[in-house]
Every structure is written in structure tokens, then in C-alpha cells.
């Protein structure tokens, strides 16, 4: 099964749902675009490149975080997860399927933001970074989201954890603003958050920041290792079968 199950789950939970319930798209759209608007209004045009990159990355983070809400709902409210646990579908298929579904909800926002971002001068590698880094981030956050969702005891806690995760991964770290703004004493804290590295790489690809080769390699490695570990954690330590 594998890939086929993932695509079908994504289609079922994402495309079919979205086609018949357009309202579902609004909330994933609203936060990144609101923050982008606020940065523009408060800090002016100079803040726009950072904020555009931040909003674009936040859509992928949001897609990953949304996995918690949907999976907790599937598990505790409609019990669809119970049906899938007792079937040949694996935990990874399910996690990836739901994560894929979330991309349908954010895709209009991604397309909207890609239009101004593609106007930035970019190398071929920059273009690659613009596509791949957000996808790695989405995978990483989805895996963390899935892991948490299997331990959340009820739906309300699911909403609370996803709000908290969004805060830690997308609002507080230097996603929408330059890392230099953070006091140097707090900067190491920002560097332990994987989305900081995703934002740095993305902004470098757009020419907003300049990174040394060592910094670029470190950020790529940090992101790849973190996403691999979180995926392994999700597959092996998530509570697919309850204990």
C-alpha cells in the first residue's frame, strides 16, 4: 500500500473536504496573512521581505501543526483512527496521509505567496531551497504533530497543544523578522528551534540574509537531522496502539 494509501487519505481528508467545505481553508490562511499585514503596517515596506518569507514558511508550519487538531478529532470524536489502526494501514501511512491533506488547505496561500517570492533574484539552488526547505519543515512539524496527537487525551487539549506548538515554531522564532533583532543572550534559544534554520535558509535563498558556507551547511544538517529524528520518533514512539 504505502504511497497509494497516503495519496488516497490525503485526497479524502484534504481535497474532497476542501471542495465541499471552502470555509476550512480560511483559518490556515488567516494567521500568516494577518501577521504579514501587521508587519507591513507597523514596520513598513522594509519589513516586507522578511515577513513574506515568514508567512510562506508559516503556511507549511501551519499545515504540520494542523495535523494535531485533525488527528485528535479523528481519534477522539469520530473514531476514524480506531478504524484505521485495526486495518492494514500503518501509522506512517496515516500520518503522511493526513499531513498531505493539510497541504490542500494551505495550497492556495502557498501559490499566492509564491508569486511575490518568485520576483526575488534567485539562483537555481535558491529556487530549490524555496521549494525543499518548506517541505522538510512541513514533514518535520507533521511528525511532531502526529506524535503529540497520539498522546493528547481529548480534543480540547489538542487545540491547546497546536496553539502552543504554533507559537513555539512559527510566532516566537525569527521567522517573520531578522534573527539579529533577538538579544544575543537569547539567540542560542532561537538556534535550537528547527524552524529558525528553515527561515534562515529560505531568507538566504531570497537574498534577504547572507550566511557563510559553514552556517548554510549547519542549518541544512540541523533541519535534515531534526526532521529525520522527528519522523523516526513519530513512527516508533507515537501511540498508534494505545497502551
Amino acid at each position, binding site marked *: 500500500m504505502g504511497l497509494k494509501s497516503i495519496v488516497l487519505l490525503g485526497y479524502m481528508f484534504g481535497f*474532497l473536504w476542501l471542495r465541499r467545505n471552502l470555509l476550512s481553508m480560511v483559518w490556515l490562511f488567516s494567521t500568516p496573512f494577518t501577521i504579514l499585514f501587521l508587519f507591513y503596517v507597523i514596520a513598513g515596506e522594509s519589513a516586507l521581505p522578511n515577513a513574506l518569507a515568514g508567512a510562506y514558511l508559516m503556511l507549511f508550519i501551519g499545515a504540520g501543526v494542523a495535523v494535531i487538531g485533525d488527528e485528535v478529532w479523528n481519534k477522539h470524536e469520530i*473514531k476514524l483512527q*480506531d478504524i*484505521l489502526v*485495526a*486495518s492494514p494501514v500503518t501509522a506512517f501511512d496515516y500520518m503522511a*496521509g493526513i499531513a498531505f491533506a493539510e497541504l490542500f488547505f494551505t495550497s492556495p496561500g502557498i501559490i499566492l505567496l509564491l508569486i511575490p517570492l518568485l520576483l526575488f533574484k534567485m539562483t537555481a539552488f535558491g529556487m530549490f531551497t524555496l521549494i525543499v526547505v518548506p517541505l522538510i519543515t512541513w514533514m518535520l512539524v507533521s511528525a511532531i504533530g502526529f506524535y503529540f496527537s497520539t498522546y493528547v487525551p481529548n480534543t480540547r487539549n489538542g487545540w491547546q497543544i497546536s496553539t502552543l506548538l504554533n507559537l513555539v515554531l512559527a510566532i516566537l522564532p525569527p521567522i517573520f523578522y531578522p534573527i539579529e533583532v533577538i538579544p544575543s543572550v537569547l539567540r542560542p534559544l532561537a538556534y535550537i528551534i528547527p524552524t529558525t534554520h528553515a527561515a534562515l535558509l529560505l531568507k538566504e535563498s531570497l537574498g534577504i540574509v547572507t550566511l557563510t558556507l559553514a552556517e548554510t551547511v549547519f542549518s541544512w544538517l540541523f533541519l535534515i537531522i531534526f526532521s529525520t529524528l522527528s519522523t523516526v520518533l513519530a513512527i516508533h514512539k507515537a501511540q498508534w496502539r*494505545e497502551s
Partner: protein
Amino acid sequence: MSIPIVKTVELTKRYQRAGTLALAGVTLELNGQGVFTILGRNGAGKTTLLRIIATQLMPTTGQVFVLGFDAIKEAKMVRRNITVMPQEGSTLPPLTPWDHVYYLLRVRGVSKSDAEDSTLEVMQKLDLVDCMHVHADQLSGGLRQRTMVAMAMATKARLLLLDEPTLGLDPLSRRRIWKVIREYCKTYGSVILTTHYLEEAEVLSDDIVILSKGKMIAQGNVDALKNIVEEKTKVEVYEGFTDEELQSYGRLVVVADRRRVLTDPRAAQELVNEAITRGVKAQTSPITLDDVFVDLAEEES
């Protein structure tokens, strides 16, 4: 000898957070192809047992074998051969009954054409054809419940686990589901269900397991269970007799506002005659599973 559908050995389950012992050493064996019913009061451990069999929940101690596979170590093999309808499950609001059944089959690895055939077949059996393309949020609770049953049945799994499949359904819909369950057993495999409806258990079951406070207190077919109760006739009396008077005819069992006298046919007739003389209502009938269940539950408590 054929492999048991389900075999459990000294199965226990303790929920750490609540500190409750949901199963306290259940050893049972379900053999042959048929409908197996798990009966019990609220909190007896029915859903816990079903979820352990379905590989959704790990037991604290003990062993579980499903269709010959170790459900703890060989969950993957078990999952290929079973399907589940969870208790109080629901449907995805913007999706139709067709979507629910068809995509679940596809996700399980069924080919497009087979999934289409099976979906249509189950829609017809469960009388869902007229609403199969209506969004679930526009369906009645009963139709949504039938969609859940359809999702399980369409898989044609060797073992179907249904947790209260007729909960909230009207009497006609319940009977339709009973018929479909019986047909399923003849064609595809076995069904294990939990229910609170004793009439449902009596009509459907080839074998019944009664749980009380996490323990199995009885197992057998309907006739065998009825033999647990010594008396074979009951008289239901509503008024006009004192408890002492009723006790002189047989064993008095009080269930809510109803009083039942379990006795032999001759004494039952005498009690009915006396009721007629006094001008009060009394009904006599052979004992049912309900009487057995009440008797066993009372004994346990």
C-alpha cells in the same frame, strides 16, 4: 481441530490514569464461524476486550490470539484480517456514505473496480442507495450509523468487530442490520459484537460471553445460558400482590418498578389465575436472556 476465532488467556487490563481494572483475567475461546456477542453492564469491560482483540489497545498482562495470530506480537497479520466499527464513531461531515465506504476500501488496498462493486453492494444491503451521494452532515443519525456499519461490512474481512452497531437505530433499521450481519457470517466470516440490547443478542448470537466487572461470568449459546437459571417460566406482576405473596410462588426478582417471579409452569399458572381473580395484570412467558442476564448481574453484585 479448527483455529479459534479468538482465544484469550488470563487477560487483564488496568488503566493507569484512572487506576481502574477493566479486565481481571479473562480466559475465553470463541470457536467456529458465527456471531459472538459480548454482553455486560456499563463498565463491564466489553469495549476494552473488543479493543484489545482489535489490536487498538495493549493488554496489561495475558495473551490474545485472533484467527490464530498473536495479537500482541503479530498485530500486522491480525489487522489484515479484521475490521472494526468503533463505539460512538461518526462520519466526516462533508463526505458522503459512498465516499466513506469506497475510500476506506481503497486505503485498505482494494482495487478501484472491486471497491466500487463492494461499495454498491453494501449500499444496497443496508438500504443506503438513495442517500449514498448525500453529505453525511445532512443525514439522520440512523443513516450515519448505517454508514459506519457499511464501512465495516464492505471490507469482507474474516472477522468483523462491531461495538454496539445498532445503538440509536429504530427497530426496523436494527432488524435490517441483524439480517445483514447473519448474511455476512454465512458468506465472509465471523462477527463479534457488543450490545446492550438483550433481544438483539438472543436473536443474533451463536455464542454469548457475559462480562461483569472485568470478569467473564458466563459463556454459551442462548439455550445453554438459559439453563443457568433453574426456573424456566416467569410471571411479570405490576401491582396487587405483596412481595411476600409473590415469594410464595417462586423466586422474586425486582427490576426497577417491575417485579418478576421466576418459577415452574404450574406455579406460574396459579399466580396468573390469582391475578385474574384479583383483577390485576400479570404476564407469563418462558424466561429470556434478559432474565438470565439480570440474574447473573444480581448474583455478581
